[in-house]
Each structure stands twice: as C-alpha cells, then as structure tokens.
C-alpha cells in the first residue's frame, strides 16, 4: 500500500483529516491526530487488501453516510497507518475466540469529520474496533460482552475494552476494543513539519 504524508494532501482532505493536529479527547488530554496514511485507490482495492488472514482492509474502514461526503464518495481514501496494527490484534483475538469476528459499519476507522465523532475516540486513529457479533453470538448482553471482554483483555496490557453499561464510555450493544492513540510512522518518512 502506498503511504502518503497527510500534510501533502489537498486542502479539502487536510481540512477533514487534520493530519498532525492536536485534538482534545478529554479535559486536559491532548493527542496528535494521525499524519501518515495508506492511500486506497478504490473500494475494490480495499476489498482485495488482506491485512491478515481473516481481515481485509475494507472491513476496518466501512462507514455510513454520516462520514464527510468527500471521504465517503471520493477516492482515493486515506487510512491511518496504525490500521495494520489493529488488524494484527484482531487476528490474535479471532484466534483466541476461534470464530469469525464481525466488525461493525462505523466500527473501525472513521475520520475526525464523521458525524459520530462528536466525542473523539481511538476510531479516529484507526486503532479501535466495535464488534457486534462473534460467530453466532450477538454481543448485546452483559454476559456476552463481558465474556469476550475478558478474552480481549488477555491479549495484553495495551488492549483497552470499554466496560458494559449504558453510560458514556461504556457499551451495551457491542464490544469496543482499542489500542489507544497509537501513531505509526513508516520507515523513510520524517515527522518534521
């Protein structure tokens, strides 16, 4: 996959993706937004890009019409480079649960301009996944969510799973796993402005 420095993108894309900008994700908690992206030429390209044996790129970038128009309908698409790390963790998770893991629409990467991004989350960094179903099990009960949360957490201390519940920061109809605000800089690219 071709890597691009977000600072070299068109003004329209920069305005929506805001590469390298600081974003306040919580009071007094600032993080830089991703700057380096994979360039996706077409939807076919995304479907054919196998990040791991069981996850294609397309599965981790599917969004609905609440995404900004330019990013939804226009190609190329730009996806933060950390998406490959997320895919590797999801592959490990799939191996542990030994069943297909279905990442929801809007449940992988979504841009800072997506209408569901009113409250910033690691989805903007392409390091989070919302999982609605594992095998034949719908993750819409406390029992199912907590069972798979324990398995996800066992993958390592770098995995965060939102607790079960209806409040902000909790989930009650899917499993949210994320790796925090991980930034990936591919070899050969400078982080100097």
């Amino acid at each position, binding site marked *: 996959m071709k890597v691009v420095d977000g600072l070299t993108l068109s003004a329209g894309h920069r305005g929506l993706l805001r590469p390298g900008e600081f974003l306040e994700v919580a009071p007094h908690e600032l993080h830089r937004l991703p700057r380096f992206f994979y360039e996706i030429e077409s939807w076919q390209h995304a479907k054919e890009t196998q990040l791991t044996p069981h996850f294609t790129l397309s599965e981790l970038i*599917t969004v*609905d*019409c*609440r995404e900004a128009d330019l990013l939804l309908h226009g190609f190329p698409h730009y996806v933060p480079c950390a998406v490959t790390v997320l895919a590797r963790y999801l592959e490990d998770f799939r191996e542990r649960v030994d069943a297909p893991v*279905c990442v*929801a*629409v*809007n*449940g992988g990467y979504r841009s800072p301009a997506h209408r569901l991004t009113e409250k910033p989350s690691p989805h903007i960094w392409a390091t989070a996944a919302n999982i*609605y*179903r594992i095998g034949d099990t*719908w993750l*819409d009960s406390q029992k199912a969510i907590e069972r798979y949360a324990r398995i996800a957490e066992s993958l390592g201390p770098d995995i965060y799973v939102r607790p079960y519940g*209806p409040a902000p920061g909790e989930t*009650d*109809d*899917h499993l949210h796993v994320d790796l925090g605000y991980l930034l990936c800089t591919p070899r050969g690219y400078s982080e100097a402005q």
Partner: protein
Amino acid sequence: MDEQALHDGIDRLCAGSGSTAVGVHVFDFETERTFSHLGDRWFHAASTMKVAVLVALFHASNTRRVGLEDRLHVRNRFRSIADRSIFRVQRDRDADAAVHRRVGRSMKLIELAEPMITRSSNLATNLLLEFLTPDFVQSTLHVAKVDGVRVVRGVEDNVAFERGMNNTTTAAGLVGLFRLLRDDDLFPEPVRRQMLDILFAQEFNSMIPSLLPDSAQVAHKTGEISTCTHDAGLVLLPGRRPYAVAILTEHPPGLDDPQKTVAKVSRMVYEFITA
C-alpha cells in the same frame, strides 16, 4: 349515499363497534370534494406517522441533503426523548425481522424506507427518524403545508409514551400527507411515483382495501396500538381520479376486531364517493 348518510353511518358503526371515537377525512381528486367527520380530532398516530418519515426522507433526497442509495449503520439502540434513557426495538414485537438481521451492518436509506412502510418495521423507522431527526420531519411538513401531523419521537419509546409524549395526527392531517403524493407542490412526478410504489406494496391489507372491489388499488399505511386502529391512503379506482382517505379509531384495549370497523368505514366512504 349522501354526506349526511355517511355521517350517520359512521356514528352508528362507532357506537356499535365499541369505539370511543372515529375520525374520517376524505378528499376526492375527481370532484375536489372534501368530507370530514371529526377530521380535526387528534389521535395517537401509531404507525401512520411512518408516512411522514417517508415524505421527509424523499424531501431530503429531493433537496440533495441525502441520497436514497446512501448507507446507514443498522443499530438497535435509541434514546428516549423523555429522559434520554436507552431503549431497543423488541425483535419479537416488530412486524419485520429482516432489518434486525442487519444489525452491525448497513442498509441503504431506500432499503430502510421500504420495510418501514410495507411491513411497518419499527427498527427501520427509528433508524431513519434518528438520522433525519423529528425536527427535520416537522419542518418538511411545514414546508408542505401539512397541518395535523406531529412527529416528536420514534417507535417503542415507552418512557415517553408513559409521559404522554406521543406522535399525534388528525385524519385531515394524514389526508394532507397523501395529497402530496398526487399534487405537484413538493415533489416531481417520478419522486411521487417512487413513494406511491412503496405504499402500494403494503402487506397489511385488512382495513381500507379489504371490502373494496378487486379493481381498487390502495397505496396506504396502517397504524395500530392497543387503543387505536388506523388506516390512511390513496384509493385508485378504474376510470376516475383517486381519493385520499384517513380513518382513525380510538377504542378500549382488547376490543374485538377493531380492524373491521375501519374496513366498514372504508366501504361506506367508497359508496359515498362512487354514488
């Protein structure tokens, strides 16, 4: 049948059926005649409000705010307008299971609009209404000059129901909505045709169409809760322009076969129109 006979017939049916109120409004495109029997009385709208959501969706599409082919994430989790608590549409109480099977995935807006009308999918309705917002639906009705339909919330918001925060309608309001499907005030002909095709595909046909001749075609939407049984639509008869009719009934819970009352009123309206 003359107008007074129709009023008398509706009153007799209302009394004999155990209904507490029957509201009827008719507009005949052939003669431009209007008939109203408690046509301005407000009722709980039940699922007839889905016609307003359909009209708002096509208005959003027609004004290029959205595309009907745009995809929306299917998620069964909504917030009550009463206290922001979370509620879900019960799968076993929803007349349509197909949308529930798509949870976690996405569907095109038009793919949600169809089951919202034809099988009265509550999940599809709530998804579309959450996306469009009740304010947009209401502003569409305002632009269309449709009074008598108030959409404030989605379906199965039981906390709001208990607090009396309901979608409401009058028979005249619903007829106003269906007139939009014939008049060219808001929508061009191809758009009206597309909405009518969805309403013609209605699968619940035990009320307005059931006692009409086989030659009648009805584009309509039913609505039922424990205390209300409604149907509203556009009736097309061979050799004449259609008429729009809304029949709204209110009754005690558990009333036996309230749909029959609506069907009988529909038959009387047909006889009045074709007399």
